[in-house]
């Protein structure tokens, strides 16, 4: 019994240990090598979700179901290539996470990032994208538990905010690594430089959520109920 509970919470425990060690080492080294330690924290923050995914005995149907959503999210970048900065990947991740919960949302978001980069080219930005889209799924999954999340206006605000948060986290990877010293000016300059793309991302999220949220949510829920997939009560 005890071993089972360690297995269930192992990811979280490990993540907390890694984060404490990394933060303590930043203090010990007096701020040197902060890039390596912040990267360790980034990895640690994703660990519990992957751990849960490994430990929960998902059936083949459920794995394939998640794979379809992740693929559609990744492929969605292709038909929208002629419209610059407009892509429904974030929208698809948000809708799936609202319908399926935070764990599935994370897996869909991070898999979509890694797979679309296998075709568009991996780079140092890959882990950051996995983190961004994964966390987008997690937050959408968390608000999905409340009734007010079915209000499309609230979701539009949510999508708009994530358009900017996504851009800001993606600015971090090169600002952190290659600009010194780090202060608010660096970050504000990086944010201003990417403001146009972030705004386009935010507005396209709002556009897709306002027009297509209801129909996509219904499709995903229908398959979920029809095939009895990813029932949270059953998994735990």
């Amino acid at each position, binding site marked *: 019994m005890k071993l089972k509970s360690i297995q269930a919470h192992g990811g979280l425990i490990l993540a907390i240990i890694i984060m404490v060690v990394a933060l303590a080492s930043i203090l010990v080294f007096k701020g040197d090598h902060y*890039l390596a330690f912040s990267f360790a924290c980034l990895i640690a923050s994703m660990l519990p979700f*992957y751990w849960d*995914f*490994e430990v929960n*005995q*998902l*059936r*083949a*149907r459920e*794995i*394939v*179901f998640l*794979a*379809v959503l*992740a*693929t*559609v999210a*990744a*492929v*969605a970048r*292709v*038909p*929208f290539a*002629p*419209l610059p900065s*407009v892509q*429904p990947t974030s929208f*698809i991740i948000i809708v799936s996470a609202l319908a399926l919960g935070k764990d599935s949302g994370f*897996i869909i978001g991070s*898999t*979509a990032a*890694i*797979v*679309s980069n*296998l*075709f568009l*080219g*991996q*780079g*140092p930005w890959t882990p950051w994208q996995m983190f961004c889209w994964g966390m987008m799924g997690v937050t959408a999954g968390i608000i999905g538990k409340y009734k007010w999340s079915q209000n499309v206006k609230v979701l539009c605000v949510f999508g708009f905010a994530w358009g900017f948060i996504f851009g800001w986290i993606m600015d971090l990877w*090169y600002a952190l*690594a*290659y*600009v*010194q*010293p780090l*202060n608010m*000016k*660096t970050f504000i*300059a990086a944010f201003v*430089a990417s403001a146009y793309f972030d705004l386009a991302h935010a507005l*396209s999220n709002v*556009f*897709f959520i306002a*027009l*297509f949220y209801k*129909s*996509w949510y219904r*499709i995903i829920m229908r*398959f979920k109920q029809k095939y009895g997939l990813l029932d949270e009560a059953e998994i735990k």
Partner: protein
Amino acid sequence: MDVHRKYGTRPQRSNGLKSRLVFEQLNPWVMFTYYILTIAFSMTFIHPIFLGCELLIVILLNVVSKNGKQLVAVLQGSLFMMAFIMIMNPIINNHGTHIIMTIGGTIITVEAVVYGALMALSLAIVMVVFVSYNKSFTSQKFMYLFSRISPRLTLLTLITIRFVPLFIQRFKNIVTIQATRGIQMTSGSVKHRAKSGMRLLEVLLVNSFYNALQTADSMTARGYASGKRTSYERYRFTLRDFVSLGLLLVGSGICFYSATKGVGRLAIYPTLGKVGLSASGIGVLGLVILIYSFPIILEAWEWVWWKLSKLKG
């Protein structure tokens, strides 16, 4: 044969069996170590001579493995970030003793300009290393490394990778069929095009759900998750892999140890140091160059060996 070549419909793995470089035939663990080391070095040794040599070698590596086109595309794509780094560093940072000029109260120093240029160079190296990585480190190899650590996640990722070309193919069919109903993305306002794009994706989603759930049922019927999973491709860990990995690790260990002693790092703040290298600096530079050109050395070695064995015969 020709049909395959023309349309690129041949499955990737049958192309993958014939690797161009000797380096690509090594065990994935050795290749992965090489890429990690090159990126780590480009961030550790912040020195113009080191960075210059490293950049030249990784460009040469890409030329040897014939990725010239991707190389140019990636370098063009990263120009924006490089420019940002080169401009932001002097503007934000006014440490340093040699002042070039002041613009509106902002002091621009030689030190900050040099630091910005070095950092842009370092970013360029990382970008070029990833061009080679994307070519040589196939997704099969990536999956081989991570299927031990996390089998379920690897399965999910592998299925998704397989789905991408399949879904794009399916999507093209859907586009053709729906065009007869007037749903298309080629004309109209941006809003109209985005709307029809989403309609098409909706069809793709529903269609794919039905197909995929059937696949899943057949997986279950064939005994998925009933036992331990085996791997399609096998990568043996040969003596060559063992020796290569050992040399890489020992060499890089010496380099990193010297780096903690300040070797190979240009003193920038508060005053720009001398660019010239000490004796130990030249030694470490040699070692770094050897590690960076490891794939090229393997290639040259094979070439020489081949010529020699032909001479004998």
